[in-house]
């Protein structure tokens, strides 16, 4: 059966506290972290982008999977901050991790769910026996306009998943999607920063699509909330996934382990995939995981996953999500602005 044969993550070292951002914009109350459920967010170094983050995550995935990278026959990188508008990030990743040249590759974009769309594409190719192993990456160096609400959560990081059939660490039992035309968040060609529909991003966008995806998956798999040990929802902030869980009747403790957003912010295409990796880092064999990724625009990809025994012997091979969360250096707003090219005079 098709499953995850390897996975790896990467989070840049720098962090900025959300209270530091708030103070720049005149909010000295110190309550922004609690309000958003995001206390600090990851910041990429000046020499990091989606290509470098993807390569580091993919190298971790390959090392954990103990596979020959030449067996990877499809590479998909999902992101909304690809370094080139035209020139695939996937080619850079494939070359850097030592893939065969006889493979297919493409970059994907679907706001925050482009990475899980890549997982579904790789699953299709593996299940139809067109390829042995496919690599799907979700990574972003998310942009937030200075002073905008997004600036508190737009973070950097990525997760890479190797999809195959041989000795999986976790089996993907089923996946479904739900897609509509909902203009809650977008970025036009040539624009530096995205725009969003403010409060519109909640009810008709995130909640509607995540709920529809979740219910559709439960129906298709003939399961209930009680059949799952862990839940992972896309994390645009710390509040939305918790509210979604409450709405669906998910016990808090089943969601808690996936909420990486509190320490690193929203890694966009890497968000739900990073939450899933955090769960895979700790889940016992036989555990069941329910994940729903959400992408603005809008759509959701829902997955039912069962952890296999093979996962336990592969732990300790590569850094965990917590290892990366723990490796941090705080920067102030000025340094953050310099690293993120918000100081235009520097070019």
């Amino acid at each position, binding site marked *: 059966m098709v499953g995850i044969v390897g996975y790896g993550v990467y989070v840049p070292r720098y962090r900025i506290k959300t209270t530091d951002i708030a103070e720049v914009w005149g909010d000295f109350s110190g309550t922004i972290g609690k309000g958003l459920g995001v206390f600090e967010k990851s910041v990429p170094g*000046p020499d*990091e982008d989606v*290509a*470098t983050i993807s390569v580091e995550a993919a190298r971790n995935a390959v090392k954990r999977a103990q596979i020959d990278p030449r067996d990877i026959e499809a590479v998909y990188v999902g992101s909304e901050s690809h*370094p080139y508008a035209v020139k695939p990030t996937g080619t850079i990743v494939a070359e850097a991790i030592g893939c065969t040249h006889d493979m297919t590759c493409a970059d994907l974009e679907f706001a925050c769910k482009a990475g899980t769309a890549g997982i579904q594409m790789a699953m299709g190719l593996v299940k139809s026996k067109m390829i042995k192993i496919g690599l799907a990456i979700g990574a972003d160096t998310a942009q937030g306009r200075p002073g905008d609400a997004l600036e508190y959560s737009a973070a950097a990081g990525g997760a890479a998943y190797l999809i195959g059939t041989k000795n999986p660490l976790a089996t993907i039992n089923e996946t479904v999607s739900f897609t509509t035309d909902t203009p809650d968040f977008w970025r036009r060609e040539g624009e530096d920063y995205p725009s969003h529909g403010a409060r519109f991003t909640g009810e008709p966008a995130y909640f509607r699509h995540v709920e529809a995806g979740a219910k559709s998956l439960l129906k298709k798999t003939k399961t209930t909330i009680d059949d799952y040990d862990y839940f992972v929802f896309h994390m645009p902030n710390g509040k939305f996934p918790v509210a979604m869980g409450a709405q669906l009747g998910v016990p808090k403790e089943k969601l808690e382990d996936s909420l990486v957003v509190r320490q690193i912010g929203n890694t966009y295409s890497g968000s739900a995939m990073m939450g899933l990796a955090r769960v895979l880092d700790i889940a016992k064999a036989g555990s069941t995981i329910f994940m729903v990724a959400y992408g603005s625009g809008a759509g959701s990809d829902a997955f039912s996953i069962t952890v296999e025994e093979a996962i336990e012997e592969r732990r*300790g091979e590569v850094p965990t999500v917590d*290892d990366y969360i723990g490796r941090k250096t705080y920067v102030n707003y000025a340094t953050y602005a310099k690293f993120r090219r918000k100081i235009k005079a520097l070019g």
Partner: protein
Amino acid sequence: MAEQGVAQVWRRIKSMYKGVGNRCETCKTYYFPPRPVCPECRRKGKLVDYTFKGLGKIYSFSIVRQAPEDFKRQIPYIVAQVELDEGTRLTAQIVNVDPEDVKIGMRVRACFRKIKEFGQGGIIMYGYKFEPTMKVTGHE
């Protein structure tokens, strides 16, 4: 001049991305970047491609505080001579460590970073820099 650098970047991709150098089968010496001829064995040398493991230690370093225009965003930054475990030395930037914490002999591993951009519309050159090995499970 957006096309600047294209050929030179493309030619070095294997070395810059994966650390491919070479090794002389005759005298067992490793070379990075790869050499066309073994300077020790000359005609008797037999060079084969070798992918370096990317692990080593800092042989010497310097902290750059006055940088060229392209690198101003990064100052202060560290440039070091890294001695790889296979014996050869190369020059690279050291990242993920503050300048006051870098030390000769520090254990480092190759990581993947953006090296240079040929202007805003030009090609982006990626490749190796080095970072201290993380004190976590399995990083080496």
